[in-house]
């Protein structure tokens, strides 16, 4: 009971501290602005209206009642609003606010007043940590409520999966925040903690993308090697058949045509051999890093879970192709499609649990230092 009073007091103090910052109001205002902008997109019989009808884009496909409108509207939410705004801009702003939680708490003169109480250091640590996450969760919560209402109003989709943004963004944020806390506890400096976190974030982002690009290229070269080998096999069969039939001219032709694909297959294989070790190394590094991007990506997956049409199709224009237009994609496209498929196959539990393991390790170190430290 007494610990309960203390926990509430610490949470309240964190909240008051964060609210006292000027940035708080700015973030709140910007959140409002984004949600109003989202709300201002509407669909009618002839196309899309923007800014509450201020401008209008005519479209044959994307108008009210079409599946395109639904996919687009939800896609704007998951791909732009959550991915770009919540998971980038708003997160940077939140990091700027919450970076000060531990350093300002640990300031000389302030920390003695709290550490000299009956509440244990472990409790204090976790309450402070959760306080930072709550701050983010509350902001995202208000935000998603707006998005939920917007989607219901605009495209008549009342999908509670929209609220998945709350745990997912908070989870994503917690991967960064644990690093923030670790550096904050060690250095007691807001600025250092902030910069270190941004650096860490940037590195997870780069590692993830480097890994992606490497994998994509490996797939691409593998596809082209396979295709070339297949072509080689076909031509060889042709040549052998011609030789057997005594058609020397045709056999020679086939042998001649064979050289191109053969060379291509060799080159592609060489490229694969060259890239593969790097891809493996990046894959290993990626395996121990928290999945910042993919965690956010889970929301997207959930929102499109049973739609026939994906945002990817919309963006690439594939959604508007007629069946007869269908052509075999080139290697690059094939690799991209393969990547999307593979990405969708990575299980959600794996993405989350490996990231959470990372977070626990970092938090464990931070807590260990926090408990042992002399203030």
């Amino acid at each position, binding site marked *: 009971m*007494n*610990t309960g*009073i*203390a926990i*509430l*007091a*610490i949470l*309240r*103090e964190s909240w*008051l*501290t964060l609210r*006292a910052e000027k940035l708080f109001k700015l973030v709140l205002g910007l959140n409002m602005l984004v949600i109003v902008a989202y709300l201002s997109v509407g669909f009618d019989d002839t196309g899309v209206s923007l800014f509450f009808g201020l401008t209008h884009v005519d479209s044959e496909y994307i108008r009210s009642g079409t599946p395109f409108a639904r996919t687009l509207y939800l896609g704007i939410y998951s791909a732009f609003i959550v991915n770009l705004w919540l998971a980038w801009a708003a997160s940077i702003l939140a990091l700027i606010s919450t970076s000060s939680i531990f350093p300002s708490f640990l*300031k*000389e*003169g*302030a*920390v*003695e*007043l*709290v*550490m*000299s*109480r*009956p*509440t*244990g250091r472990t409790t204090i640590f976790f309450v402070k940590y959760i306080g930072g996450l709550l701050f983010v969760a509350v902001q995202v919560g208000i935000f998603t409520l707006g998005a939920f209402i917007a989607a219901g109003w605009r495209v008549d989709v009342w999908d509670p999966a929209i609220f998945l943004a709350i745990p997912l963004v908070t989870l994503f944020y917690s991967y960064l925040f644990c690093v923030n806390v670790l550096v904050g506890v060690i250095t007691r400096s807001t600025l250092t903690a902030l910069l270190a976190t941004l650096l860490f974030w940037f590195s997870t982002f780069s590692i993830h993308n480097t890994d992606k690009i490497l994998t994509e290229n490996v797939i691409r070269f593998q596809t082209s090697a396979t295709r070339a080998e297949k072509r080689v096999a076909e031509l060889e069969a042709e040549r052998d058949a011609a030789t057997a039939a005594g058609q020397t001219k045709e056999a020679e032709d086939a042998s001649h045509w064979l050289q191109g694909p053969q060379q291509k297959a060799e080159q592609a294989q060489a490229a694969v051999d060259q890239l593969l070790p790097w891809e493996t190394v990046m894959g290993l590094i990626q395996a121990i890093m928290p999945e910042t991007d993919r965690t956010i990506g889970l929301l997207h997956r959930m929102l499109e879970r049973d739609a026939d049409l994906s945002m990817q199709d919309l963006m690439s224009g594939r959604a508007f192709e007629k069946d007869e237009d269908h052509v075999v994609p080139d290697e690059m496209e094939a690799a991209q499609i393969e990547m999307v498929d593979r990405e969708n196959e990575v299980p959600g539990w794996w993405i989350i649990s490996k990231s959470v393991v990372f977070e626990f390790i970092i938090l464990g170190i931070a807590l260990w230092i926090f408990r*042992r430290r*002399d*203030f």
Partner: protein
Amino acid sequence: MPAAIDIQDVEKTFRKKVRALRGVSMQVDPGQIFCLLGPNGAGKSTLVKILMSVIHASRISGTMLGMPIGHKETLRRVGYLPEHHRFPAFMTAEQALHFYGSLSGMRRANRLKRIQAMLELVGMAAWRKHRVGTFSKGMQQRIGLAQALLHDPELLLLDEPTDGVDPVGRREIRDLLIHLRNDGHTILINSHILSELETICDQLAVVVKGRVALEGTIDELTSDRRRWIVAYEGSGPEWTDEETRQDGRNTQVILPGASANDVQPVIDRIRGAGCSIIDVSEVRESLEDLFMRALELAGEDAATPGANKGRPT
């Protein structure tokens, strides 16, 4: 009654081999005002922080209020005013006190009652709705004191409580401490303003370079150093063996270890010589004298600030 604080062999070595405490033992009796004295960097604040579990000792054994040092629940019964404390600047005096009261596990109803009472006690009732960040140093110190007293602790550890407080405030604090002691509270106070402690100190320890150089009750420490001083107008007499001290146009004859009887002949002699007596008084050794004595006991470089560095000696 068991000691309020009873610690043995406290050692603390900070990183970079700063040996702040090198085997400190002391006992603070309940219901006493205990003064912790010592030069800058002697380790006084470190010792208090160890008692409050803000700093971990390298070695310690002993108890506070009958429980082992570091026992968290016991801290509910202890009030602490840290040196150079600072409150969340954006909080009002009232909010800050609610915060600290809650940390000590006080319920709201109790907090409301006590906060009002404490703010009145430290003379800050009119400022309860104002932000702590706008307060002067002395005002912050008063809030700090209110914070330490809020949960009605049995034991108070005050690290330089009068730092920055005006003369009237100091006097009020002094009276408050006496009142608290008479109420049965135990107070450990750490201050450099010896004159202020003079009239309230029951027990003391002088810490020098991480060691206790002198410890005991005032009576114990000063009993063999009582003396009488007879002051009169005029210059020093040639006819006495007693120690004399010139004080402007006056002279003081100092009679260590004397009783009132021993003084009478000296008075007679002075009067016989036609000088006017200004003052006859019995003087105990002052805290300042005790402090200096402790430094002498501790050795040559005792007066230089800071802790000892390097390997154990």
